[in-house]
């Protein structure tokens, strides 16, 4: 395509440069009813899955329709979202912290037409463009990352695993039958961009092989002390090696100390570790961020490894479904996944879900590992550990 200048002059890059203006002030985009009643809301109700009403002191009502968003979306899709907002919501809309889309209307009679319009729109392949749901005690959107679409350190894909999982859990998105909210998150490496460390169920990309060393380029491309300091288990040390008869500076990796975190590759491009057979998925469970009844919790590793099975990850989605179904049938009302697992005991969690307990799940990272072992005779006999 021909080059079209925006007016930027590459020879004088600092001329007419605008900077440090920050984001737009959010009040510019408030629907009038939100602007008027800001800070004066009385209560809200979830009318049905995906539809909430908020009632203000003035008596004003705000109906909110929440629909699933695929997060990575084209400009045409955003234009379609705008078109819907123009048609039904005076041009206003918002995105949630879990990347759902919320359309807001100020009276009840506007809800049905909007709902029907949203549910009538489908992708050519058959998927809902705007599935209504994500409210209350169900499963809302999966917070996720870049995967093979854009990042250089992933051990699995984000968009693919998320689509496969949401398809399997779709009924829970459009309904509110669970004991409490169930948050699923996904990160494609253990940088954990997002919320995998604090979610009810988490999908995490994982490597199983140590980095390869590109000795020829390592000293040229990497700041060696940074690579050494990047390693949580001190598996890396500086080394002199011979390349084509010449001594060069590089590093050596003690394979039996490496646990494949990939942090050295983040710092040093000459230490790649992605591997087709080695890479896959770890499942974690039991985390939460709210302070509701129990304090926030970290999620724990419950499945040590599942292979990458593109494009649908069937073993992974089966394990997730199994966890969700067991929790749904067993937990008390308001109990989050972690609340439930801690009440019944993790040994019962493994028995009930049928997940395999392996030595990989026992913490062995530094002094804090000790506190995750059991210093009590309080336990239940189970058939989970063979």
């Amino acid at each position, binding site marked *: 395509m021909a080059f079209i200048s925006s007016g930027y002059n590459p020879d004088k890059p600092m001329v007419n440069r605008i900077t440090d203006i920050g984001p737009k002030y959010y009040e510019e985009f408030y629907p009038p009813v939100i602007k008027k009643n800001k800070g004066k809301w009385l209560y809200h109700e979830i009318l049905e899955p995906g539809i909430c009403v908020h009632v203000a002191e003035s008596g004003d009502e705000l109906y909110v329709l929440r629909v699933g968003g695929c997060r990575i979306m084209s400009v045409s899709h955003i234009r379609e979202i705008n078109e819907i907002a123009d048609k039904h919501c005076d041009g206003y809309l918002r995105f949630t912290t879990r990347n759902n889309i919320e359309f807001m209307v100020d009276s009840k009679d506007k809800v049905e037409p909007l709902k029907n319009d949203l549910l009538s729109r489908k992708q050519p392949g058959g998927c809902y463009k705007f599935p209504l749901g994500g409210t209350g005690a169900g499963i809302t959107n999966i917070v996720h990352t870049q995967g093979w679409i854009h990042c250089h350190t992933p051990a699995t894909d984000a968009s693919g695993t998320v689509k496969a999982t949401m398809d399997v859990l779709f009924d829970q998105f459009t309904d509110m039958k669970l004991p409490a909210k169930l948050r699923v998150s996904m990160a494609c490496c253990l940088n954990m961009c997002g919320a995998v460390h604090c979610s009810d169920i988490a999908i995490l990309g994982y490597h199983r092989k140590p980095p390869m060393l590109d000795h020829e380029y390592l000293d040229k491309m990497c700041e*060696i002390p940074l690579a050494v300091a990047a390693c949580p288990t001190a598996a890396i040390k500086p080394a002199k090696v011979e390349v084509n008869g010449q001594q060069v500076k590089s590093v050596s990796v003690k394979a039996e100390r490496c646990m494949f975190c990939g942090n050295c590759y983040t710092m040093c491009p000459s230490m790649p570790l992605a591997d087709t057979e080695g890479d896959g998925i770890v499942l974690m469970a039991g985390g939460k961020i709210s302070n509701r009844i129990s304090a926030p919790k970290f999620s724990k590793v419950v499945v040590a490894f599942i292979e990458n099975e593109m494009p649908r990850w069937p073993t992974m989605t089966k394990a997730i479904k199994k966890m969700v179904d067991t929790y749904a049938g067993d937990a008390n009302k308001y109990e989050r996944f972690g609340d439930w697992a801690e009440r019944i005991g993790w040994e019962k969690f493994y028995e009930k879900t049928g997940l395999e307990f392996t030595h990989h799940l026992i913490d062995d990272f530094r002094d804090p590992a000790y506190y995750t072992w059991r210093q009590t005779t309080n336990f239940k006999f189970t058939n989970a550990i063979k």
Partner: protein
Amino acid sequence: METVEFGGKTFSVDEDGFIDSFDNWCPEWVQYVKSVEGIDELNDEHSKLVDVLRDYYEKNGIAPMVRVLSKVTGFKLKHIYELFPSGPGKGACKMAGLPKPTGCV
């Protein structure tokens, strides 16, 4: 790797225009980076930053933290940006021939 010609020399560079090796740095490289980094006139302060970066890298094998760079040169971050519009990493380190910054930048 791509190559660029400048001032009668040939340099191998990556896709972001960083030089392939600290050892292949030379004064012509400085002039080349000046031409692509939006710098009108090179002055003593540019040279001081480049010298400090090369000296620190030679001794320590890493680029200095921004606070160290400010402390040693006496230039506040704002002034470093006045000298190098792209900043200490993409601008100054590139000119000094250091490896491309890594991590979640």
